[in-house]
């Protein structure tokens, strides 16, 4: 039995889009508070390796998932220490975090490489499983992270746009001086935003190692952290648009694999480039009007008013 192309691509888009979405949501929170973390890829790697290592050591995927979120949050707190407390350059610190993440994840993962894990359990609600077009596909047979991906996007949207905390985050991202003058503590809000974003980044990595691939390999994120940074721009710093972005980019990857499996005459090298071509196109299209959407103080260091 063969699955229609549309369903195959959709199924693949959901699976590879899940980690992209969590990573994008995490980066969005930080950028809304005015901080670009180019080290997102490193946070993903730390989440993937810590999650896998803890799961392999304890036998519990849930423990691995919790540890991955915690490790991601701690990783971003280290980044916050650099860029908020020490007021270091965000771009340089982000790249340093990326390299740190590469090394730290390799160190943590090495003793457990090759371990066999059961991974996060998957559920498919019975009524959905009975649908004829669902049978024999991976559709709706998801782990907790995929099931909660959409609610997570709504939660981040709600927190950023419907709570006093989110208003503070966004105010700091637009103008730390104004936020400070209105009685907010920009540094504290930025640290909180980065910690929350780091937890999401760690979960994104955990989805790769604990659910999608059930393995740990060095640099297994293969650039997904950077695609997520581009997705933040694509979604214009809006959590709900990030859902569409993650599906689109996950779909681009799934499409090229599905087309190959269908014996497409298109060169595999060309198909390989599809997600990145899409990234370039998005940056081209959005590039000129970036100021209209980006938090005004994004990437700038706030030195206080003294």
């Amino acid at each position: 039995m063969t699955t229609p192309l549309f369903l195959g691509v959709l199924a693949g888009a959901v699976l590879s889009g899940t980690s992209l979405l969590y990573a994008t949501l995490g980066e969005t929170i930080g950028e809304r508070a005015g901080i670009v973390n180019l080290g997102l890829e490193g946070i993903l790697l730390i989440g993937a390796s810590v999650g896998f290592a803890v799961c392999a050591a304890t036998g519990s995927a849930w423990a691995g998932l919790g540890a991955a979120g915690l490790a991601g949050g701690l990783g971003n707190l280290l980044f916050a220490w650099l860029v908020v407390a020490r007021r270091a350059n965000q771009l340089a610190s982000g790249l340093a975090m990326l390299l740190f993440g590469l090394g730290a994840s390799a160190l943590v993962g090495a003793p457990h490489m090759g371990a066999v894990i059961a991974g996060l359990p998957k559920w498919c609600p019975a009524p959905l499983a009975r649908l004829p077009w669902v049978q024999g596909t991976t559709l709706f047979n998801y782990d907790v992270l995929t099931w909660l991906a959409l609610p997570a996007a709504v939660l981040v949207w709600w927190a950023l746009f419907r709570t006093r905390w989110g208003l503070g985050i966004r105010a700091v991202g637009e103008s730390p001086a104004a936020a400070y003058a209105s009685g907010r503590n920009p540094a504290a809000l930025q640290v909180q935003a980065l910690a929350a974003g780091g937890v999401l980044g760690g979960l994104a990595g955990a989805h790769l190692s604990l659910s999608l691939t059930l393995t740990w390999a060095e640099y297994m994120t293969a650039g997904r952290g950077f695609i997520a940074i581009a997705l933040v721009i694509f979604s214009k710093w809006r959590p709900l648009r990030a859902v569409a972005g993650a599906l689109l980019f996950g779909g681009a990857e799934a499409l090229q694999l599905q087309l190959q499996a269908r014996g497409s005459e298109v060169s595999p090298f060309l198909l390989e480039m599809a997600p990145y071509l899409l990234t370039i196109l998005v940056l081209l299209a959005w590039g000129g009007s970036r100021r209209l959407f980006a938090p005004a103080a994004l990437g700038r260091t706030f030195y206080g008013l003294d």
Partner: protein
Amino acid sequence: MKMLTIALSALACTPGARADTPPLVIGAVYVGSINDYGYNRSFHDAFAKVCKDLPGTRLLEAENVPESAEAERIMEGMIQQGARLVFPTSFGYQDSARRVAKRHKEVCFEFAGDGAATRNFGVFFGSTQAAWYPMGVAAGRMTRSGKLGFVIGMPIGYALGNVNAFEMGAQSVNPKATTIVVVTGGWSDKAKEAGAANALLDQGCDVVTMHVDSPTTIIQTAEARGAMSIGFQSVEARALAPKGWITGLGFNWAPFVAKVARSVLANQFRGEAVYQGLGEMVAMAPFGASVPAGVQAQVNAAAAKVAKGFNPFTGPLKSNTGSLVLPPGATVGADQMGSLNWYVQGVVGKVR
């Protein structure tokens, strides 16, 4: 990116080896981690075994060494630490290794790849291509849909050769069997390997196999969806698929490494090109529980045929685009596989 994650680890096999007689220090350079349950692990196991069995040898290892100028520095460093026999175990080390070998005529090199051998530079590899023929026989007998899935990292000649022999083996027992190829674009992009396996299963493939660094993700993805799998690189991968495991191929380098180490110890090393296939450097994994005895016998017979020298790459052979790639009687030998650039008929895929 990988260039930044270098770990140089030294492992002394004989403790306190800095005795009066200088031991033979063997330098091993790996492109990945020795814990990958795959290609790099197969080399580490061989070196560790030889250093344990052969008195007067000591092992120096460097993992995750990128295929760049970094490899040259690592090899120079090993020579400074006394290495007299160096194994650059990844194909991409060729240029670096040859440069270092030219500078250090007193050091012996054994490069896992191809090209010309020189006095102090030997070339070797396990010829897996023909060994894939019995794997194809196994897949062709076990498949119900007649569609076999093959995930490869990059479309290099050796990988294409593996796919071709696999398909020819499958056709020999199941003329309608086709092999669908999906290229991921990297030897270790795990998420894409999962996506590739899913795409093949979506197409109705019921046997999936692979040529990537570590087979774990593809085998587990197939197992979770009730499909069968054939492993590569590590014969231990069968633990990942208690239900769907058919068989697989792995490497057994230890006898060759031991022979080379002895020749260096005896000062009789001469670089040569050594390609060994099934039964020598290439080993077959045990069968899974679901493989009937009749199929096992047929696969073993095909393996014995290959071990005796049967070369499936014998003309006339047509490519999957319809052109005659091998005229009657012509063959492609193990040493020419690197330049292979076609798929045989029955393979669904495009080379470039």
